[in-house]
C-alpha cells in the first residue's frame, strides 16, 4: 500500500535497507500475496534487550490461555505454592496445564477478565518473595534416552501454548504430527507488526535455543526439512540465524527470507506461502505436510525438554505512542498489564487504548489489571491519535479486496451482514475470514470492517446450527 503512513516514527535510524548476508542458504522464496506491507520505520527497527520486570506482589493466572477448555484447578485458597508448581491440570484433550509464576499463597480462585469482555477462572497468588522453584516435570531419564512420546509428555506437562494466528497447546500440535507425519517444519520468526518486536529481542538472545527446539521438534515428528521464515528486511536476524545454521548439515535447516507483509505470520498463510496449499475451514497444516511453530514456543520447548522448565514467563514488548520508553520484558504470567506500563514510564493521562498483542492483530483490553497471558507478546499503549474516527459511506474502492490475504470481498460481506443476509455472507465465504484486520487498515472510509465480519461470523455459525463459538484468545 503506497499510502501507508500509519505510525509516527520516534527516531529514524534507517537500518532497514540492508542486504542479505551472502552465505545464507536460500532454497526457494516463499510466495507472498495479499496482506499489507506496513511502513518500515523505527517502531520495527528497535531491538531492545530483554529486561526482567520485578515479580509483582500479586499475580492473577487464568486457567485458560488459548482457544479450548480451561484447566481444572488442583489447588485451593490458602495453599502454599512454589514457582513453577502446577495449579491447573489439563483434564481435557484441548486443555493445557497452568503453573504458578511466583511462590506464595493462593488467596482466591475467582472468575477474572482475561480477554476483552470475557472472564476465566483465575488463580490469584500472593507473592511471598522467596521465589522457591519446583518443576512440574518429573525427571525420569536423560534426554538422549527419551523417545518421542516421552518428549511430547514433557512438553504437555510444561503447558506451552503456540500462537500463530490462533493459540493452540504445543503438545497437541506435536502429538498430531506424530500420528500424521509432517515433512516440513516451518519456524515462524517473522516480525510483521510495529511495536510487537519481542520476537527480535528473543532471537538475538536465544537463537541457539530456538534452533535446538526446532531440532527436537524434527526428532519428535520425523520432519526432514526445517525452514525458518524470517523477514527479508531484517538482516541482523539473518546474521544471527545463519551463523548458527551453517555449522549444521546443509539443507536440513535453512533460512527462508520472505516479504514481511502483514499478516503472513498466520499459520494458514505461511503454509500457503511455502507449499502453495490452500487451507480452508477446518483444514490443518498437517494436511499440507507442514508443522508451523513460533520461535517463542520453540525456545520454551527446548527449556521444557532439556531443563524441565514449565511455561511461566512470556517475553513481552511494551511500546506505542503513549509509552514513554519502549522496553522488552521477560514478564511472569499473571503480571497485571499496569505493572508493565508503569515500568515503561507510560503517560496514563494520554492513554486511550491498550492493546494486548500487536497493534493490528491484538485485541484492546478494558482493564489495566488484566494479566499477561502465555500468548501475550506485546502491549501497545495508544493515545487519542490512534483512535478510529467516524466512518464514512463505502466508496467501493476495493482496497479491502486487494488487501485481503484470503481473497474475500470484505466490503460485500459487510454490506450483507449489515443487511442481515447471513446466507449471502455464508456463500461469499465469510467463515474463511482470518480477522487479520487488513481490510480495516486500508479502508479510506475508515469503516471498521472487522467488527462487522466478527459479528457476521457468529451469526452465520448460529444460522448453520453450530452454536459453539470459540473464544479467540489474544495473540
Amino acid at each position, binding site marked *: 500500500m503506497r499510502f501507508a503512513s500509519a505510525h509516527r516514527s520516534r527516531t529514524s535510524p534507517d537500518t532497514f535497507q540492508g542486504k542479505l548476508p551472502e552465505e545464507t542458504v536460500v532454497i526457494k522464496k516463499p510466495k507472498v500475496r495479499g496482506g499489507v506491507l506496513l511502513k518500515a520505520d523505527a517502531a520495527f527497527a528497535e531491538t531492545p534487550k530483554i529486561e526482567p520486570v520485578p515479580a509483582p506482589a500479586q499475580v492473577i493466572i487464568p486457567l485458560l490461555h488459548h482457544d479450548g477448555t480451561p484447566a481444572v484447578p488442583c489447588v485451593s485458597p490458602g495453599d502454599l505454592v512454589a514457582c513453577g508448581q502446577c495449579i491447573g491440570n489439563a483434564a481435557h484433550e484441548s486443555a493445557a496445564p497452568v503453573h504458578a509464576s511466583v511462590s506464595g499463597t493462593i488467596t482466591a480462585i475467582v472468575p477474572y477478565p482475561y480477554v476483552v469482555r470475557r472472564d476465566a477462572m483465575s488463580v490469584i497468588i500472593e507473592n511471598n518473595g522467596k521465589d522457591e522453584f519446583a518443576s512440574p516435570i518429573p525427571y525420569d531419564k536423560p534426554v538422549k534416552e527419551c523417545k518421542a512420546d516421552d518428549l511430547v509428555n514433557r512438553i504437555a506437562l510444561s503447558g506451552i501454548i503456540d500462537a500463530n494466528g490462533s493459540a493452540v497447546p504445543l503438545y497437541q500440535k506435536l502429538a498430531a504430527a506424530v500420528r500424521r507425519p509432517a515433512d516440513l517444519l516451518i519456524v515462524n520468526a517473522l516480525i510483521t507488526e510495529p511495536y510487537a518486536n519481542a520476537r527480535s529481542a528473543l532471537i538475538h538472545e536465544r537463537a541457539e535455543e530456538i534452533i535446538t527446539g526446532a531440532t527436537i521438534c524434527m526428532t519428535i515428528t520425523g520432519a526432514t526439512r526445517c525452514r525458518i521464515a524470517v523477514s527479508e528486511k531484517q538482516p541482523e536476524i539473518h546474521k544471527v540465524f545463519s551463523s548458527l545454521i551453517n555449522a549444521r548439515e546443509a539443507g536440513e535447516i535453512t533460512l527462508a527470507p520472505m516479504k514481511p507483509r502483514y499478516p503472513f505470520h498466520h499459520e494458514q498463510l505461511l503454509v500457503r506461502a511455502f507449499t502453495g496449499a490452500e487451507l480452508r475451514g477446518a483444514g490443518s497444516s498437517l494436511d499440507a505436510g507442514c508443522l508451523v511453530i513460533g520461535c517463542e514456543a520453540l525456545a520454551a520447548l527446548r527449556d521444557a525438554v532439556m531443563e524441565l522448565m514449565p511455561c511461566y514467563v512470556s517475553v513481552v514488548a511494551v511500546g506505542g505512542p503513549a509509552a514513554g520508553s519502549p522496553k522488552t520484558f521477560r514478564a511472569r504470567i499473571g503480571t497485571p498489564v499496569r505493572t508493565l506500563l508503569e515500568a515503561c514510564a507510560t503517560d496514563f493521562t494520554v492513554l486511550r487504548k491498550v492493546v494486548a498483542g500487536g497493534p493490528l*492483530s*491484538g485485541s484492546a483490553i478494558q482493564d489495566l489489571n488484566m494479566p499477561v497471558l502465555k500468548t501475550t507478546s506485546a502491549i501497545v499503549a495508544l493515545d487519542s491519535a490512534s483512535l478510529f474516527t467516524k466512518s464514512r459511506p463505502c*466508496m467501493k474502492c476495493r482496497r479491502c479486496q486487494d488487501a485481503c490475504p484470503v481473497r474475500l470481498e470484505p466490503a460485500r460481506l459487510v454490506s450483507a451482514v449489515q443487511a442481515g443476509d447471513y446466507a449471502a455472507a455464508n456463500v461469499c465465504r465469510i467463515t474463511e475470514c482470518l480477522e487479520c484486520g487488513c481490510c480495516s487498515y486500508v479502508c*479510506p472510509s475508515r469503516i471498521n470492517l*472487522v467488527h462487522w465480519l466478527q459479528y457476521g461470523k457468529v451469526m452465520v455459525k448460529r444460522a448453520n446450527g453450530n452454536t459453539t463459538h470459540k473464544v479467540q484468545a489474544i495473540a
Partner: protein
Amino acid sequence: MNGQAGLTITALPHLHSGVSVARIMYTVLIALAPAAVLAAFVSGPRVGIIMALSMSTAAAAEWIILCIIQRRFCGIDGSALVTGALLALVLPPHVPLWMAPLGALFGIALVKAASGGLGRNFLNPALAAKAFLVLAYPAMFAAVAGNTGQPEQLTWNSLLYFCIAHQDTWLGAASPAALVAGAVFLMYLRVIDRVLPLAYIGSAILLFWATGESSTLFTQQAAIAVCFQLCSGGVLIVALFMATDPVTSPALRTSRLFYGMACGVLTVLFSMFGAQGHAVMYAVLVMSCMVPLLNRWCAPGQRGHTKDDY
C-alpha cells in the same frame, strides 16, 4: 465503547494506513490538472470559467444536499469536485456557460444523491450529466459532433503534435499526452485500476484497426489513423478516468477485464452506427448498467476460488 479507566475498546486493527476518501479525490484532481491546463492553453480562459462553474456548483449542491436534506453531513470529501471537473472536461469548449452548472446539478442531485450518495450511484454522475445535456439540448452539441479537429495530413509528426495539444470537441481531450500522464500517475498510486483501461483501449484499437479501409490495413497509414481515432474525441478521458470509476465498475479483476473489452466493442459499434461523437459516453453508460450482473457472475464465492482467480 469505554471500559474501566476510560480505555476504548474496538475491534482490531488499532492502526490505520492513513489513506482517506478526501486524499484519493484530491489525488484524482491533481492527475486531471495537466489536462485542464492544456485545454485552457488551447481553447482559452473560457475553459477555466467552465471548470470553476462546474466544480463550484457540484460542491455546493453536494454540501446543501448532505447538510440540509439528508442530515448526515460527514465532511466534504472532494468527490463532488472530481465530478464537477470531469463534467467540465467532457463538455465541448464552446458550450454556453449555464450548461456546466446545470449538468453538475443534475449529476450530483439526481444521479448521485438520489441513489444514496457516494458509492451508491450506478451511473457515473459526470457522464450521466453529459448524456442528459446531450439529450435535452441536442442543438448545442450538433454543431461540433462531426468535427474532431484532425489535421489534413496524417503523419507520425502531426500525430505527435496532436497528442500534445489540439482543439477537440471534448475539452479534456485537448491533450491526450496529459491524460495518459495523469492516468499513469493514478495507476502508480493504485488509485485507479490498470486492467480495465488497458482492456478498453486495447479492444478499441483492435476494432478501429479492423474496421478501417481493408486495402491499407497493413500499412503505416492505418496505424496512424487508428492512433488519431484513439486520441481524438473522448475515448481516452472516458477510458482512463470515467470507466475506471470504482463505484460504477465491477469488483473483480476478471469482470473488469470483460467490462473494459465490452466498453471498447460498444464504443466502436456505436461510433459506426449512430451516436457519432458520443459513442464512448453511451458505451460506458450501457456497461455501467451491467455491473451488478457482472459482479454476480464473477463472485469468487460462487465460483469457488482457485489460485489464478486473484
